[in-house]
């Protein structure tokens, strides 16, 4: 019973970590995009 619970926890931990890392990366890319937008608008204003 305990090993089943551990396996289930490992299953969800791996998925949560993977998805969180990818979402964090995507948000970082978006943040760079927003920063570049601001910089270019400011430079060309």
């Amino acid at each position, binding site marked *: 019973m305990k090993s089943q619970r551990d396996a289930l926890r490992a299953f969800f931990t791996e998925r949560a970590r*993977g998805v969180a890392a990818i*979402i964090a990366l*995507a948000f970082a*890319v*978006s943040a760079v*995009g927003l920063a*570049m*937008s*601001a910089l*270019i608008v400011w430079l060309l204003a």
Partner: protein
Amino acid sequence: MRMVLRPGPDDLKLIGYYLGKVLFGLGLVILIPAIVALSAREWNAATAFIIGSSLCLIVAGLSEALLATKRSLTWAHGMVIVAVAWLVGAIFAAVPFMLSGRFETPLAAIFEAMSALTTTGMSVIHDLDHTPLSEDFYRHLLQFAGGQGIVIVVLSLFVSGGAQAGTLYAAEARDERILPNFIRTARFIFAVAGTFLVVGTLALFGALTFAGFTPSRALYHAINLFFASFDTGGFSPMQASMAYYHSFSVELVVMVLMIAGTLSFGLHFALWRGDPKNLLRHLETRTLAVTSTLFFATLATGLVLAGTYDSATAVFRKGFFTLISAMSSTGHQVNAGVTYLTDWGVLAPAALVGAMAIGGMASSTAGGIKAIRVGLAFKALTHDIRRILLPESAITVTTYSTGRRQVLRDATARSAMTVLLLFIVTYLIGTVTALLYGEYALTEALFEAVSVGSNIGVSIGVVDPLMPQGLMAVYTVMMWLGRLEYVAVFALVGYLFAIARGRTNA
């Protein structure tokens, strides 16, 4: 040139048998919108789906009864099966579209099915905003099936043996071996997609509810948008695409899903296993980072200089979103296609065309030349320049990382350059074909050809329900070629040549 062996009846039987299995899977896929149609009481649509599904299942049943074989697949068989499966699959998947009455011609229905399966996202449907829910759901579901790789999805479920699946996996332009066994690799890909399906749909549901949608409408749009965004397909439940929602939060979630969709499954695997260093070292990540930065700097400069947008938020929401949509090969649009021509000046559309041509990462759901090939071509170029500049006795070795350090070999560089060149030739063929009709300007023809050939789906307006049928046929073939990255299609052509002119064994 009579070296090629003519395939025998047993070879054709084997190919037919596996095609039957693919059609069996497609028949099951078509049953899902049939259930949606029945529960939504859309009787006409339900009938169309039941007929479409039955056709697939009948042909699959006949193939099982008449062609069943235990022979193993060779490399050539795998390539031919995949090339034919994507054509035959699009034709069978088009049956419910043909019966819906929303397409001008049968070719338009096949175009829509091919656009869905190849995750291109161009649409020639009439009156999308009043399409039955089940039919719209079906368009998006096909993008999900195609994005995951319909052949490998089906065969990993219904065929035992990793070697058989491996042949088909590589032929379907998914050549990254994440795990030693192809079935396990396919299952990992399903696990990623399944997890994102839950997380992405929930996030979109939240964003749409926040934007004022009722819960049932929010759920329906969330599921469809997830399929179209994570699988970099680009269909949308509404004619106006993403512009319909007028919601920054929806655009942000969609942007995250598009970025996740354009990352190769190998990088997903590295991140799931907590190995971010792999991500940073990878030649493809670096190429994508450099090219997308350069393209966005050009695009944003073009937009500001043309006076299209003057605030950072507008440049981000319109420009950056469109760039991500183009590079990820999704094709979601936040403004009408014609504005690229009328409002965006010259620099911004040019950057967009460049971004569309390169596309996303290999072994992801993205299309285009792929960043890894551009990276390899650049490495090969710098390698040649170094060889010229260094003394003749010097040995030049160029390395790159794809998770592990590799030496750049001539064969690898040649293969990358060949596919890159083939994509460019395809873009030119699409452009010239459109120009021959005399209805389109060079900018429109080139923009649309690159978008179709790279399976992107951002449209400047050439693709519409009343476009010339010849051009529609050429675009359909371009989507097929682009999705399979040529190799499987060339193998099919070679196989047909062998059938006609090959040497018999006796």
